[in-house]
């Protein structure tokens, strides 16, 4: 039952100890990615085995083995594999690809896998802290760069505040019911759902605020842009994709597996958070000139759309939220993959204007970035459009037409800043980096990276393919909940 987690733990330890002597970053990265492949395999095998033999989906009230856990784990492992693969050259180039870097990455994966299966508040808390602590350290891995450390401090303080609030909420719920395991707790909450005490509603609010911090949802979003800008690009990709899936897993476990009977308390709050983050994310992103900050605000807006589905609190709404999460993750992965490929040794791509005329030098990369931007903006026929369309459809079905219209209008506002990047790539002229050296242009390849290029193309292609044929993926998501 614990084979995937065991493999990750073992690989992390091996990499940590061999990294002391071995300085070959490529080999360490290969080891980490190989272990992730093994983990994927083990996850799938265990799932099919327990499905065939009708094993229990709950192990001693501590550990879920249900569909949600399976899907979350598999998504986390696949994105982690992509993130590591895309970042190999970058980490080597920035000289952060030591044994510690990969060991911490794997420890973070371990924490995320634990969170995805948690059926008890203690398990959830330990998993959450395991992956958060590892990511704090990863953000600070460029220890000579000032903004990296600053980002790490900010992430650390807000992360600690979030887990403190979460814990306080958990303690209040524990006091009111005397339960820490999810399944009996949910039964108890179902009984007292109508006559709940002040203690429980306050606990629910604390938990919600804690998770909102972790997800990076307005008005608890202040840290997101700073961390996206300050962290090394490969770590930023990590925070933007894998950590977001883990935060979504926490959201699912807490709101769907525990607090679902108390929907009357948290649904209005989640509606508020959702609308505010769509508004803040989409409007603030317009003003950004830094690519990473723009992506940060875009992620805030996307989390808002996600919560708009979550607040409906029905099985199909959670499935749509999962579908939306997948579309967001693939879109962000594609966008950052292109930027990672383009890091030149004389200049990092930081500003949006550094991408000027990318089309003239690397038409394929420009096209992949175009796909990512269109998908994130929600332009048909890409995956992002299908995801947004599902949410709007769901809202209209549930008679929340006001929310549906607001979401669509703000999507049009948001499309502006994605389209601006496409304009810069396709219609602006190349600008030399330095007037003295007229033949060095910013959008240049770091090195020829066949595997990473194939991975980026794969991500971009899947955006297009799944956008045109979304039925299978959607069906899959609907079966999870």
């Amino acid at each position: 039952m614990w084979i995937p987690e065991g493999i990750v733990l073992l690989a992390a330890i091996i990499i940590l100890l061999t990294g002391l002597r071995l300085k070959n970053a490529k080999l360490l990265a290969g080891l980490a990615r190989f272990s992730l492949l093994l983990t994927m395999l083990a996850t799938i095998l265990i799932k099919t085995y327990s499905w065939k033999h009708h094993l229990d989906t709950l192990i001693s009230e501590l550990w879920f083995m249900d569909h949600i856990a399976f899907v979350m784990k598999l998504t986390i492992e696949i994105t982690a594999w992509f993130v590591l693969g895309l970042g190999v050259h970058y980490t080597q180039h920035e000289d952060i690809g030591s044994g510690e870097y990969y060991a911490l990455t794997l420890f973070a994966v371990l924490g995320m896998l634990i969170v995805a299966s948690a059926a008890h508040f203690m398990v959830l808390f330990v998993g959450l802290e395991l992956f958060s602590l590892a990511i704090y350290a990863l953000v600070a891995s460029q220890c000579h760069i000032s903004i990296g450390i600053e980002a790490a401090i900010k992430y650390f303080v807000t992360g600690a505040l979030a887990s403190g609030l979460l814990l306080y909420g958990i303690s209040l719920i524990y006091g009111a019911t005397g339960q820490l395991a999810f399944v009996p707790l949910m039964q108890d909450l179902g009984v007292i759902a109508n006559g709940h005490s002040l203690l429980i509603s306050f606990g629910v609010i604390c938990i919600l605020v804690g998770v909102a911090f972790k997800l990076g949802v307005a008005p608890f979003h202040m840290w997101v842009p700073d961390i996206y800008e300050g962290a090394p690009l490969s770590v930023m990709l990590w925070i933007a994709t894998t950590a977001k899936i883990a935060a979504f897993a926490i959201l699912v476990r807490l709101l769907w597996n525990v607090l679902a009977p108390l929907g009357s308390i948290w649904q209005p709050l989640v509606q508020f958070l959702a609308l505010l983050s769509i508004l803040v994310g989409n409007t603030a992103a317009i003003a950004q000139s830094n690519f990473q900050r723009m992506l940060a605000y875009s992620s805030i807006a996307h989390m808002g759309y996600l919560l708009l589905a979550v607040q409906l609190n029905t099985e199909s709404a959670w499935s749509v939220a999962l579908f939306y999460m997948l579309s967001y993750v693939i879109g962000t992965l594609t966008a950052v993959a292109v930027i990672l490929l383009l890091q030149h040794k004389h200049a990092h791509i930081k500003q949006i204007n550094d991408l000027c005329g990318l089309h003239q030098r690397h038409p394929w990369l420009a096209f992949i970035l175009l796909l990512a931007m269109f998908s994130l903006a929600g332009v048909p026929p890409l995956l992002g459009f299908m995801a947004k369309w599902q949410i709007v459809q769901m809202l209209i079905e549930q008679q929340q037409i006001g929310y549906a219209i607001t979401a669509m209008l703000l999507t049009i506002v948001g499309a502006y800043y994605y389209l601006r990047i496409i304009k810069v790539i396709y219609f602006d002229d190349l600008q030399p980096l330095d007037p003295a050296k007229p033949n060095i242009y910013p959008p240049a390849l770091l090195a020829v990276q066949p595997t990473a290029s194939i991975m980026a193309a794969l991500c971009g292609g899947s955006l297009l393919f799944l956008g045109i044929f979304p039925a299978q993926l959607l069906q899959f998501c609907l079966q999870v909940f």
Partner: protein
Amino acid sequence: MIGLSHYLSVSAIIFSISILGLMINHRNLITLLMCIELMLLAVSTNFIAFARYLHQPAGEVFVFLILAVAAAESAIGLAILVLWFRQHHSVDVEQLNRLKG
């Protein structure tokens, strides 16, 4: 007689103090770390009080986990702080202004 509500009030007060400290502290990074520890201790007090009240050991076990995690968290916090100190030779919060939100 000191009852459950007293413990809860104390921990609520400590928790509020720590959150206020995190929000309005504009001097020292070490103070931020102390506020975080204080927050976790307030939560631990809550758990212990509830565990005694409900006659359950589960809450007390949770406190052990919280303590261990708090130690790991402060270790990471101190490590990041040391990195910051090596660059700036101070622990001022004021200097955290390179990244504008």
